[in-house]
């Protein structure tokens, strides 16, 4: 049997840096193939070459045994390859249907038949059991729905080979379940799927075979029946993973207090509704919830990026309600933001500049408004060593870092602030399991030093393994609090879905 897709000896150089080093990979019809590897291993680069977004330095691509070369995504699409980018490629002001049919619109003469487009999209969604609302603007859709739109778009274009780059990183557990089901269904209908992910449990659940990359090279090509999560992890990081360290118990005074905080835009429904919470020294408080239930607003309110209409915010008893970001940071807050490209970095800035944010006015790194580069570079280099951040140099553009490496840089930057309180929003999103271990360890270490962490994550396992207490948010309110010892996935899920808290 011929392969549907074969990539042979693919190599990609960025300058003198080898992002992909003669990688080969093959894929059959109806097969789900996972590509895993640590951050910066070259997964995305490989896929960009397959989709015609980057030209390989050397190597060959065969589709159904035929040698092809892609100068642009057009050529890839013409060869029935579709890609769902991790950072979605959507037109926010267009409806779902418009986003899906664009490029192959149903026409009446020269006119765009929008009614027909909506019908086709509805039918397509029904056929693959991928529900979307055809006439809603994508800007108004949840992340999960946006992703379904992306998948339908690829299907609408007639793709037989579908690339999914970290599709589950931004989804809620429920949405992940749906996605995995969809992937399986598509494969059963004869589609070939390449799945890039860091979540090995997902890989084991859905993939038939996998390729493991490290430092641009293939370190393993295995099929599901011959492997396990542990083996994959070892192939990926090249070492065994450790257990998390022990928790030191301590009785701490409150560091962060929110008292009846309400955030509301004009007269709309409040985004945060009378939220009261406390984070004490030596604890990690986890916030669970389906995304869009006020977590973002909560973090923005605490960090000073959003004004509060009612209530009070205190750090160490000092009132910081509606203070500037700078003074709140000074009062003792550091912040790993949820969207690293929007809040956490500037793509055009260098790695050094990205790291410098928040340090530029610290006396250690500034004298008479001049920046002291030498000590700062030393600091950044220490982060790079500690977190194994892969970057060409400090002058590399932040936008050229792989997503995971940028995340590690941001985490290092915020931990480096050594503030009594850290807000960590999705701290390990898109980060490989090795790095995830580092980050989790670092958060625990912070806690054990007697500092406090407010953790927001859509990853229930992350919340459960790290948090001392778990608060669940629903529609802008805190609807429940569960202690570490009582936490179970079921209990949290019920609260997240708006159910009542049972006695435990």
């Amino acid at each position, binding site marked *: 049997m011929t392969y549907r897709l074969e990539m042979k000896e693919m190599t990609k150089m960025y300058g003198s840096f080898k992002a992909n080093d003669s990688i080969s990979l093959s894929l059959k019809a109806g097969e789900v193939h996972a590509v895993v590897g640590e951050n910066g291993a070259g997964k995305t680069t490989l896929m960009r070459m397959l989709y015609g*977004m980057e030209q390989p330095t050397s190597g060959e691509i065969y589709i159904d045994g035929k040698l092809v070369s892609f100068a*642009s*995504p*057009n050529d*890839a*699409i*013409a060869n029935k390859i579709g*890609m769902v*980018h991790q950072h979605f*490629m*959507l*037109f*926010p*002001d*267009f409806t779902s249907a*418009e986003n899906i049919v*664009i*490029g192959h*619109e149903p*026409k009446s003469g*020269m*006119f*765009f038949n929008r009614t027909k487009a909506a019908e086709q999209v509805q039918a397509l969604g029904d056929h693959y059991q991928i529900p979307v609302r055809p006439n809603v603007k994508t800007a108004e859709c949840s992340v999960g729905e946006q992703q379904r739109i992306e998948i339908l*778009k690829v299907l609408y*274009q007639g793709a037989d080979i579908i690339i999914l780059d970290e599709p589950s990183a931004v989804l809620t557990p429920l949405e992940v379940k749906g996605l995995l089901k969809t992937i399986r269904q598509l494969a059963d209908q004869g589609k070939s799927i390449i799945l890039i992910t860091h979540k090995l449990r997902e890989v084991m659940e859905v993939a038939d075979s996998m390729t493991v990359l490290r430092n641009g090279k293939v370190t393993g090509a295995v099929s599901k029946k011959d492997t396990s999560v542990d083996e994959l992890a070892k192939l990926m990081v090249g070492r065994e993973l450790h257990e998390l360290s022990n928790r030191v118990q301590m009785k701490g005074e409150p560091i962060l207090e929110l008292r009846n905080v309400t955030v509301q835009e004009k007269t709309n429904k409040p985004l945060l509704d009378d939220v009261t919470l406390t984070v004490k020294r030596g604890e990690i408080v986890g916030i669970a919830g389906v995304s869009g239930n006020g977590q973002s607003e909560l973090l923005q309110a605490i960090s000073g990026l959003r004004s509060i209409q009612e209530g009070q915010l205190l750090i160490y008893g000092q009132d910081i309600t509606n203070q500037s970001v700078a003074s709140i940071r000074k009062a003792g807050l550091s912040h790993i933001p949820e969207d690293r490209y929007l809040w956490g970095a500037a793509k*055009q800035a260098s790695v050094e500049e990205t790291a410098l944010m928040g340090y530029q006015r610290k006396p250690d790194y500034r004298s008479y408004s001049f920046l002291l580069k030498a000590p700062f570079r030393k600091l950044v280099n220490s982060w790079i060593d500690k977190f194994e951040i892969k970057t060409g140099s400090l002058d590399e553009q932040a936008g050229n870092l792989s997503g995971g490496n940028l995340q590690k840089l941001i985490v290092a930057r915020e931990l480096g602030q050594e503030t009594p309180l850290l807000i960590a929003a999705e701290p390990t999103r898109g980060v490989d399991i090795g790095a995830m271990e580092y980050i989790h360890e670092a958060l625990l270490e912070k806690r054990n030093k007697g500092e406090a962490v407010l953790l927001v994550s859509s990853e229930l396992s992350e919340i459960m393994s790290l948090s001392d207490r778990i608060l669940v948010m629903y529609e802008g309110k805190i609807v429940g609090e569960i202690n570490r010892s009582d936490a179970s996935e079921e209990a949290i899920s019920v609260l997240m879905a708006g159910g009542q808290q049972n006695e435990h």
Partner: protein
Amino acid sequence: MELFDLTLISSTLRMVTPILLAALGGALCARVGLFNVGLEGLVLIGAFSAIVGNHLTGSVFLAVGFAAIMSLVFSMLFAYMTIHLKANDIVVGVAINFLALGLTTFALRTIFDVKGAYYDKDMKGLPKWDIPVIENIPVLGELLSGHSPLVYVSFLAAILLYVFLYRTVTGFRVLSIGMNQVAAKSIGLKVGALQYLAIGLCGVLCGLAGAQLSLGQVTLFSEGMTAGRGFIALVAMMLGQSHPIGIVGSSLLFGFMDAISIRLQGFSLPTQFTQMLPYVITIFAMFLLRDRGMGSQHGNQQSGR
């Protein structure tokens, strides 16, 4: 002196036509992510070519066509420089303005052997169209009838552009480019070709704007006769948020205020202050429109980073 009279409206309609046409053209460029400050130059090329066309063919309609073609040619220069050679759109626009001024002056000398202005009393301008039924309605007839065809064309162009952008497939794709160019490329749209199309249409519209100026409003060409209308068009385009109907509104607002400011000259205010009126009112209009459409981020994205 009367501030408001019938001529106010009909004068506004005439004066606003070149601005409206050019602003629609500018909007097309904006919709494919290019800020075209070269409108002034493109209109000037159109104005000159219309006169040349008329001189050569003796037919006003061929002359208008010639103007459209010549502006189209120069808009293709804009397109080639910005799309293929990735030149900064503003630099190219400014350079095109310079180039148009130089070329038309130069050609005026070489073709007509005159400096400054070309005027031929026997040259026929665009006819005034009397609209059959409306013509006879007392007030309305005076306002709406008896303009040059391009006046009607300009408003028709706004409607057609609306239909094009919001009803046709090609227009839909054009819109997508301005919204998210990276995404448009990623799904394999021929972004370059669509940009060429939009810029080409912009050229045609600017050519018509020029023809209205040199054959519709007057029948002559003089150096730099656009006198800043291209920049006003740019303002009208931005104020109208690159939406055809919005642009009709903003152009009319500006034209109306300009007409009022002329009429205010008779009163005791210094002329410089009456001349400020349209600009002040436009800022005020922006203030009222502030919560709509493209926020300030849009400006950021267009900056020369």
